[in-house]
């Protein structure tokens, strides 16, 4: 048995809002894997892309406060949203590499009796499970088989870009690997790191719908029965806008999408309800009934 892993947990605004199923399934899967997640007390917005377009330094300050709070807990910070990952990591890099930047942030934090020495590592849950927990421990918890479920592993942009610290920037395999451990069959998916449009779905809907059409089309062409996501924004766009895509392009997509933690949770024996499955717009129920088999 491995030593228990302990992290501070940063859910992020999107998971706290319209994507609570991601949070629910994360908590359950981590519990099953003996990963202690303690939600970072009074965390704030990471300063993601929208804030960066308004005030650069303050966006970094938002990240820096989270890092300072995490350092107090003497634990690394686990995130589930790739956009939070990129923002927090960028601030961490600048703090380590740019003395002038560090001074400015340091002065600002000091005004509220906060300080940050740079010891916190920001990690995505997917990477923690694959690299820290590992194949053996994951497989040991499987209670149900996913009989030949063909899935499209959809990484989106910011898990691996721009830093590429977790995996290849354009053709990562880390999620593919995890999915095979739990018995699913990841299909070849060339658009696995192509953009879903993110916030453009609000501001330039036609462009974003086109991007989602391409991703859905690619998943289907390659035989995927569902799409597995790791990003709340990707999930929202790919899962809840298929009606709009169909209307715009005359297509008939009806591809269920699940968070990787939801699929893991199913394999670990948790119920659909506990994992927030059935909250999606396109039901995965018929698909799961076809593929799930109880082992014991």
């Amino acid at each position, binding site marked *: 048995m491995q030593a228990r892993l302990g992290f501070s947990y940063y859910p992020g605004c999107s998971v706290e*809002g319209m994507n609570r199923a991601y949070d629910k399934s994360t908590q359950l899967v981590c519990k099953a894997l003996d990963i202690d997640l303690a939600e970072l007390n009074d965390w704030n917005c990471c300063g993601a892309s929208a804030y960066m377009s*308004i005030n650069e330094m303050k966006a970094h300050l938002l990240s820096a*406060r989270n890092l300072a709070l995490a350092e107090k807990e003497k634990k690394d910070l686990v995130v589930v949203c790739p956009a939070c990952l990129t923002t927090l990591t960028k601030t961490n890099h600048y703090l380590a590499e740019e003395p002038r*930047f560090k001074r400015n942030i340091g002065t600002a934090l000091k005004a509220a009796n906060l300080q940050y020495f740079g010891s916190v590592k920001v990690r995505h849950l997917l990477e923690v499970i694959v690299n820290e927990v590992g194949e053996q421990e994951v497989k040991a918890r499987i209670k149900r088989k996913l009989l030949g479920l063909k899935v499209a592993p959809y990484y989106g*942009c910011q898990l691996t870009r721009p830093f590429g610290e977790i995996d290849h920037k354009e053709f990562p395999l880390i999620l593919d690997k995890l999915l095979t451990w739990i018995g699913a069959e990841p299909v070849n998916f060339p658009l696995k790191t192509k953009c879903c449009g*993110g916030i*453009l779905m609000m501001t330039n809907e036609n*462009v974003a719908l086109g991007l989602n059409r391409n991703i859905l089309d690619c998943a289907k062409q390659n035989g995927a029965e569902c799409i597995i996501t790791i990003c709340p924004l990707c999930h929202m766009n790919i899962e809840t806008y298929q009606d709009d895509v169909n209307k715009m392009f005359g297509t008939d997509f009806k591809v269920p999408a699940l968070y990787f933690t939801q699929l893991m949770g199913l394999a670990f024996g948790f119920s659909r309800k506990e994992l927030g499955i059935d*909250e999606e717009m396109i039901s995965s129920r018929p698909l799961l009934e076809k593929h799930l088999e109880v082992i014991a």
Partner: protein
Amino acid sequence: MHAETVERTQHALGEVFLHDVYGIPGGDKVKECIQCGTCSASCPTSYAMDYTPREIIAAFRAGLLEKVLKSNTIWLCSSCYSCTVRCPSGIKLTDIMYELKRLAIEFGLAPEGAKAPVVAELFAEIVDKNGRVAEVPLVTRFMLKTNPFGAFKMIPRATKLFTRGRMPLTSHKIKGTAELEKCAGAMTAPLVSGLHPGSAREGGN
């Protein structure tokens, strides 16, 4: 902030741009652009842009940056970082896009009716007030501001999400908002460069 803005707008737009970009770690690579067009070819939304990412750098060199800022180009950048990781000269185009977005807002050049600057400003306003962003209030305020009648079109979708428990209407205000405000007040510069905006030419030469 207002006094600084006036001071910055007295400089030519291209000068302020270069100063700010040089302030981004690794930002000086911008001068090594070879106009190969890898960025434009990698960009998932360049097909809809008035000027592609490659053309932005060309426009800057030709002193035509204002034209770019007045177009839809920068607001179609979704920050996917495809251009950044593929650029053979190591130019951080996504960070440059952020800089251009800030400049467009600061200099009042964003095109009339563009929705992206509205989202960004609402987003920042909500974060400043609550410390976090609740998505439903953000989307609602955004719709009312940009397309109040179009909001009706959203009702079927919103209803579906609501009945599935995916439309939490409440927003959480963190305890640390005053703390954040104090920190922001103590910041010595609004940009990563950390230079006083008046000294626009001191960037990195």
